[in-house]
């Protein structure tokens, strides 16, 4: 888990001010730990320089697994393991296998992607997450800056930068 302990927390009221502030703070040479928002702010991940998530690829691969699994299962069961004459049709005919194949594709893709999301985002029903400011799920956008990781800059310097960028409050927060 995180080993960092000491943080400066800038509180922002408005998402547009926040977006500009993120750019300003980063160009000021300060590393941002993370920004916490009550709702998704468009463009924030790019402003923070995050790479695009690869979850769509995971979803595609899980979907492909579903397709393959469903087709193999149906062809093997009705074509080889126990062939049955149904209405005099071929044992293996693709059209009637498509609905189940489609449903399995969707099912595995959705479940696999969500499970991957939960795992990579470290989401679990026990323990409590680090919260820099409880109001970050209400109406405040909270920018956390790790003071240990920004050793080159003093607390005052960072604090001043945050205020200049439009933070309504700057607080310190330490974790045990």
């Amino acid at each position, binding site marked *: 888990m995180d080993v960092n302990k000491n943080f400066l927390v800038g509180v922002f009221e408005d998402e547009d001010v926040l977006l500009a502030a993120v750019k300003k703070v980063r160009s000021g040479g300060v590393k941002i730990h993370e920004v916490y928002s009550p709702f998704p702010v468009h463009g924030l991940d790019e402003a923070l320089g995050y790479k695009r998530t690869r979850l769509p690829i995971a979803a595609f691969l899980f979907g492909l697994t579903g397709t393959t699994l469903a087709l193999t299962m149906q062809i093997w069961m009705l074509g080889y393991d126990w062939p049955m004459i149904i209405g005099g049709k071929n044992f293996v005919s693709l059209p009637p296998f498509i*609905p189940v194949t489609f449903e399995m594709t969707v099912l595995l893709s959705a479940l696999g992607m969500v499970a991957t999301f939960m795992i990579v*985002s470290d989401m679990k029903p026990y323990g409590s997450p680090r919260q820099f400011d409880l109001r970050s799920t209400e109406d405040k956008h909270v920018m956390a800056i790790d003071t240990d990781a920004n050793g080159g800059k003093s607390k005052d310097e960072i604090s001043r930068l945050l205020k200049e960028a439009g933070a309504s409050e700057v607080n310190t927060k330490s974790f045990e």
Partner: protein
Amino acid sequence: MQVTSAIREPLITGGKTVKDVSHDISRQVEGAPTKLWWMAMAISLVVFAYGFYCVCMLLWHGVGMWGLNKTVGWAWDITNFVWWVGIGHAGTLISAILLLFRQRWRMSINRAAEAMTIFAVICAATFPLMHMGRLWLGFYWCLPLPNTWGSLWANFNSPLLWDVFAISTYFTVSLVFWYMGLIPDFATIRNRALMQGNKIRATIYNALSFGWSGGAKTWARYESVALILAGLSTPLVLSVHTIVSMDFATSVIPGWHTTIFPPYFVAGAIFSGFAMVLTLLLITRAVFKLEDYITIYHIELMNIIIIVTGSIVGIAYITELFISWYSGVEYEGYAFYNRVQGPYAWSYWSMMTCNVISPQLFWIKKIRTSIVATFVLSIIVNIGMWFERFVIIVTSLHRDYIPSSWTMFHPTMYDIGEYLFTFGLFFTAFLLFAKFFPVINIAEVKSILKATSEKKAVAHGELVEESANKH
């Protein structure tokens, strides 16, 4: 940053701030249930208890307790099944298809509509499960599991088996989609509980929110997941009722053997789903005082969808009639003549009145923006959609190929009892949801507040300038 035209009607009224949104929607989760809630719960539980008695009797004695006979082997059970599945279409349509079309008005209504979807699909599933008779053996009949009959596998050529996969996938994916939306809102309630010093509630909602923290990285992933789930759910919604319609369309019964069934059923499903969403939301909005979030504008937009889908359904009915004559097939011709003129003509004409004529009233702006009219019409539409399924199923079966088998269907108290069981189940579940879960998507409403609330829409131009000047 999203920019909305100033002439767009505001989606959220009352000059709400971001903080107000949390407060207004979390309020009913945090407070004690109202007297009205207890009364509604008591009624639902009584209905549920009576229905449960009937279901137990059905399990003990078998489905012979239903009014089915040799000619009409499918009646209320499958009617109710298709009816509930149809209702279950609006939720995922609102959350998936409207998300892809970037319809932001869905944000106030998607939570409750999805909850309704999930409960409706559970209600639907009880009918085929009960029809199995010995439902504890049902797993072997409808899932490809190794078994003691030499592994005689399920028949993948059967639309009934496709239904098993379609409904269970739809249920699972809708549940996951709905739950994903709830996660940030559970975190909102958790943090409010922490601020109010309520440890127990904080622990419960923390577990429910999977320890959500709302970091930018998580939000970015979350949005990507929501978009892909919407992309996956869109064909899924359309596939479910298509496959349900194939239960009928792939058979050779006159009146069922129709190629227009898939689109016709999907339109009907959306039609009835929106009607049920309106019925529920009009009550929810009044009980929880959410008039600023679910506005007359939202209701009007849903009524417009009802006109569109209702008209598609109307065209489908007329096409069916026309084709039965134009095809020259006398069995088809008779099946439809019998619907219009036969002993079940009353149900056919109830269907026509409720589904084709009544939604056309929504062309009048006064009616589609009236709460009372919308509420009444939404119930009429649902009655009409029940009759649609009844007409398709029972009138096509009751005149068999040999006139000596011609008969009528009479429901017993157990047919009615199981239907009541699903009503009790549905309303009990919905009331529990409305009390313990946020009924409106808090995070999404907050995200559109700046662009679409009354006050901010005007001040938006200045605000951008102001923040630009600062730097």
